[in-house]
């Protein structure tokens, strides 16, 4: 029972493949297409946020404001714990707890460290604080008047 049979061992990594496409990994993919359009007239690199402001609406490719950052790739590491055949064993045990359990407990600090590093290393990324703090109803109402309905 403890030996992982071959078929799931092949299936499981396959099932994980959607992860980079559907989760944060989307950023690098779409970035190449949109980043160059995002900030016409602004310097490349760190300060390309406001460029999209005026021409934002429309065909949907120009208004994403995606900022690729290599540190974000660290967020993929915790996903390794979805590959169950790696740790689906009873031994070696730790204070009587099978490997399957304590190994996964170890991934809690792994996840924390990865997110913490990304937090620290991307902390200085520029944000916009110039916009007024618009709250709820008034703003959405104004938005609705300007928007057309779907064709």
């Amino acid at each position: 029972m403890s030996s992982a049979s071959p078929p799931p061992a092949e299936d499981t990594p396959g099932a994980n493949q959607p992860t980079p496409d559907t989760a944060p990994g989307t950023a690098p993919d779409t970035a190449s297409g949109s980043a160059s359009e995002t900030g016409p007239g602004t310097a490349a690199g760190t300060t390309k946020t406001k460029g999209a402001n005026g021409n934002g609406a429309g065909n949907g490719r120009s208004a994403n404001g995606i900022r690729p950052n290599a540190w974000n790739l660290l967020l993929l590491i915790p996903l390794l714990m979805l590959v169950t055949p790696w740790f689906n064993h009873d031994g070696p045990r730790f204070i009587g707890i099978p490997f399957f359990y304590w190994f996964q407990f170890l991934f809690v600090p792994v996840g924390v460290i990865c997110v913490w590093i990304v937090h620290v290393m991307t902390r200085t990324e520029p944000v916009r604080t110039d916009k007024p703090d618009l709250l709820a109803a008034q703003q959405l109402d104004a938005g609705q008047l300007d928007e057309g309905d779907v064709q």
Partner: protein
Amino acid sequence: MTSAQIVELVVFLILFLAVTVLGFVAARWKRGAGLDHLDEWGLGGRKFGSWVTWFLVGGDLYTAYTFVAVPALVFGSGALGFYALPYTVVLYPIVLLPALRLWSVSRTHGYVTPADFVRGRYGSPLLALLIAITGIVATMPYVALQLAGLEAVLRTIGLNGSGLMGHLPLFIAFVVLALYTFSSGLRAPALIAFVKDGLIYLVILVAIVYLPIKFGGFAHIFDTASHTLAKVSPTTHKPAGSIILTGNNQLQYATLALGSALALFLYPHSVTGVLASKSRTVIRRNMVALPAYSLVLGLLALLGYVAVAAGVKPIVNQATGKADSNTIIPVLFGHTFPSWFAGVAFAAVGIGALVPAAIMSIAAANLWTRNIYKEFFRRDATPAQEARQAKWASLVVKFGAVVFIVAIDPQFSIDLQLIGGVLILQTLPAVAIALYSRWLHAWGLIAGWVVGMAWGVYLLYTIPAATGKGHFGGSALALGKLSLFGWHPFPASTVQIYVGVLALIANLVVAVIVTAIVRAARAGEAEDATSGGDYHADAPEETGLEEPVLVD
């Protein structure tokens, strides 16, 4: 009722009463312009700092389900139930970046719900309506799950009546909850979450140190559990489970963890917790600090094995006449702890059910108000009217969930949550992917939603109960049963997979195909109300010590 149960009940009632007072007092806490604005009632004024957010989101995500349903699943089927740990570990790396973007764009445009964002991003009231309805419908079973946890505690204390009267204590608890949520909004669960988490940490630390020693150490506990789970059940002719995954459920384990993680921050109540924080830094810090709860969750899951080793028998629910496996942890506590401490533990579980139930009903009420009432019934609603509408809607949601729990056997209440997860996952393309790209067309998203939803519900319908008969028996499908228009890609395979992931794949495929067709036909589309910089907006620095980062 035994004398021990009376002590337990008294302790439970005292703590419940204290929390109730706190719930009403919360209305005055950090008060803003008054609760007659939806931002105040439904998002606590958007000014919760790191600590409040940690308790609020923690109270929101780690619920009665943590205490009751996960250990019950481990108790019943072994290693599979431990999926809750990888689920909450992969969760934060996955949602960190999208949550920040959602917070910023919502702050800039005053969005209160995920459907508000979809409305602004795609300008499509129909798509926003679908997202809102999905959110409300998927939240109902989640609230019902909390009720199942609360009821498990009440029945263990001895309030185990039969028929409709058996649910009376639950009704009373929920009327109380409904009243203070009505008056205090999101501030009530935020304040109560402090008490809840304090109690929970206390109980867990005691339980995880004391219980394994009492029952002969972990080695003995796991060996006993392994032996017990391997026994062939007379009804299903299969072993109940194992302490290590089998060839058949490894894929299910991974897809359950991944699917649940992807689903969690699509739930309106998680979004509410995120949007209520006051800055991006608060969210970032919390994504680092929230896994502290994951450790607790994992330890709690192991208590399922302790219950096996202790020979715990679930209590027979007098209302349904069947053994309710949700009661195993309360029963374990009741048998091994002194009655006063068992009372504290029961109160922790009970309050642990009330906090998320309150947040969930507020989130669902926000959806109703913003995306259905205001969109389709009263476009010129004032903020005060919105807030009033939301308060009443939160009542309706709670009582809807009560009806749910009375009508449905809460045996494996975790299945309720997994079914809700299948539904809410179908909003991923329109909410999460839309945070990054607007390439998918509104009509593609609508078509994908319809297909994903229909197929997901159909697959759930085809899954028989453990006895081999019936429908909606769980969320795991054997790949051999998978049929694509009559074609079986994996004939005779008994490997199981989480239905939500299959339905999401179908959803995405359809969304891409329809988008390609619509774009080829050059159909128009509505304006995008958001712009690139909106996804990085932050609140101005409060301290004044640092220069606010202004980007040109």
